[in-house]
């Protein structure tokens, strides 16, 4: 960029954003509403309104069934029974989800850093590779882990040979497998926001740090890491939320005693036919997660969300 270019960019009078200032005349004033309303209506009808239904369902008498219909009895006790019966899976969801998020951060940060700072012309290729696992089915990938972590599989046998795992040690059908699956499946959700955040950091800031006697590690800790925090927060949220609510990994890679809250809810809806308790549990999960999102939104504002 020539000095002239930089200078002219600075010299150019700031153009007020038309969306902020200009009052369009006539029909153009309403174009915005026309465009936004169809999608908003769809989301309103099929995302927001269902929550109302969910709340209503959670207050039904659990004695009914889908076929015979439910009776609205303002059964607030559904919530208490749901939580007391299922506090273990609830806790496990947050623990497994939290662990998976932590490992995603541990693995994902170096990966995002490498792509942002060290990849050069391979940047785009590596980004594609990060999301490449998504090119095949979530379920099929998870089933593959059954093979990888199988008792007579390569991984287990190697670990047994190294005496890290005992003779009867297993990986499959353990919490370890569940967390591994969760970590694997949600890694891109951590890497992409991290990458976006790291990419935006001006390299000259890091150079300035090093010019001011900071070693590479201090430079990272004092400059890069703090500036990447928005990405860390976003990535953490986008990973933890679906991970905590997942049940596929728990079902395919764990035992019934490893079940997460998602398994329970699914079970209540399916064979258990217990819609009110399922609804109550869903809402509890949602409430807990909503708290986290609200805290995040308070700090970061909504413009950067979408």
């Amino acid at each position, binding site marked *: 960029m020539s000095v002239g270019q930089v200078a002219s960019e600075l010299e150019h009078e700031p153009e007020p954003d038309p*969306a902020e200032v200009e009052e369009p005349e006539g029909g153009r*004033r309403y174009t*915005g509403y026309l*465009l*936004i309303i*169809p*999608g*908003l209506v*769809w*989301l309103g009808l*099929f*995302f*927001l309104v*269902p929550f109302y*239904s*969910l709340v209503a369902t959670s207050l039904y008498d659990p004695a009914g069934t*889908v076929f015979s219909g439910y009776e609205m009895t303002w059964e607030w006790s559904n919530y208490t029974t749901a939580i007391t019966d299922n506090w273990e899976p609830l806790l496990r969801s947050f623990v497994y989800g939290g662990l998976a998020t932590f490992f995603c951060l541990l*693995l*994902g940060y*170096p990966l995002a850093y*490498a*792509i942002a*700072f*060290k*990849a050069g012309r391979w940047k*785009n290729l*590596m980004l594609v590779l990060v999301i*490449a*696992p998504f*090119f*095949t*089915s979530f*379920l*099929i*990938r998870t*089933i593959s882990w*059954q*093979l990888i972590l*199988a008792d007579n599989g390569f991984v287990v046998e190697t670990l047994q040979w190294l005496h890290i795992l005992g003779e009867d040690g297993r990986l499959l059908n353990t919490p370890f497998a569940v967390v591994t699956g969760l970590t*694997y499946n949600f890694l891109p959700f951590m890497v992409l926001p991290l990458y976006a955040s790291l990419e935006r950091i001006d390299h000259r800031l890091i150079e300035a740090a090093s010019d001011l006697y900071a070693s590479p590690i201090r430079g990272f800790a004092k400059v890069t890491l703090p500036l990447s925090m928005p990405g860390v927060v976003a990535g953490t949220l*986008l990973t933890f*939320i*679906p991970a905590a*609510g*997942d049940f*596929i990994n728990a079902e*395919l890679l764990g035992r019934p005693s490893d079940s997460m*809250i*998602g398994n329970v809810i*699914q079970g209540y*809806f399916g064979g258990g036919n217990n*819609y009110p308790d399922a*609804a109550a549990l*869903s809402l509890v*999960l*949602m409430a807990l*997660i909503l708290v986290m999102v609200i805290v995040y939104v308070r700090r970061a504002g*909504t413009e950067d*969300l*979408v």
Partner: protein
Amino acid sequence: MSTISRPGRWVSDHLILIIGLLVLAYTFVPIAVVVLMSFNAPEARLTYQFDGFTWHNWANPCEPEGMCDAVVVSIEIGLLATLGATILGTLMAFALVRHRFTGRSTTNLVIFLPMATPEIVMGSSLLALFVGTGFSGDLGFWTILIAHIMFCLSFVVVTVKARLAGLDSRLEQAAMDLYANEWQTFWRVTFPLVFPGILGAALLAFSLSFDDFIITNLNAGNEVTFPMFVWGSAQRDIPMQINVIGTAMFLISVLIVLAASLRGRRGARAVA
């Protein structure tokens, strides 16, 4: 600094890159397994391991009963959901970037929430809606479609919005300065430049729809999509053809990405 030996220096310079590549390799192991297992000739039922090599699975992809029907259903829903979500989402993106309206922050929040809500919760609430409004007997193709358009919308908005926001509005001013009215400006300048974003959003929507299980499963009634089929077979006996489909999905996606990048590179062979 100078006390580090040369190989050591090479490692520390490239450490991050090495770690990065290792992580990347790790993400591909399960895919390698999928590809491998598509050639598997299972010896026994109920165990999932590689027993022997065969072309049989690829030669008879539709052998498992109901699988190809499920794939067709998934494709149908995917195409329709993509159409719906892309249209609605693109309109919303234009509104957000180019127009004024009150309630921006609320709109942003409403668009963001589906991306941040666990699927089990979204699926549950939709099911509650359908049951509550008396459609519990009608769960099937259309309820799945409704759900898919719903959760794909947000992703389309984000993708198109990013592309649109990067579009210099002065290009459109230049067009109008050069005698193009609003309609012509849109079709000759705005649309061609946003199109890659719209296309990307459509592809994203399709893959999200095709692969969805949790929400679909709760609202499917008697309809069976491909992920539901896989789930069902995971409880019983997994036909290897599932991995054939999985590998095919992977290959097709890779091809699309390659095609896109080749097109991109051909269009911008820049002179230094």
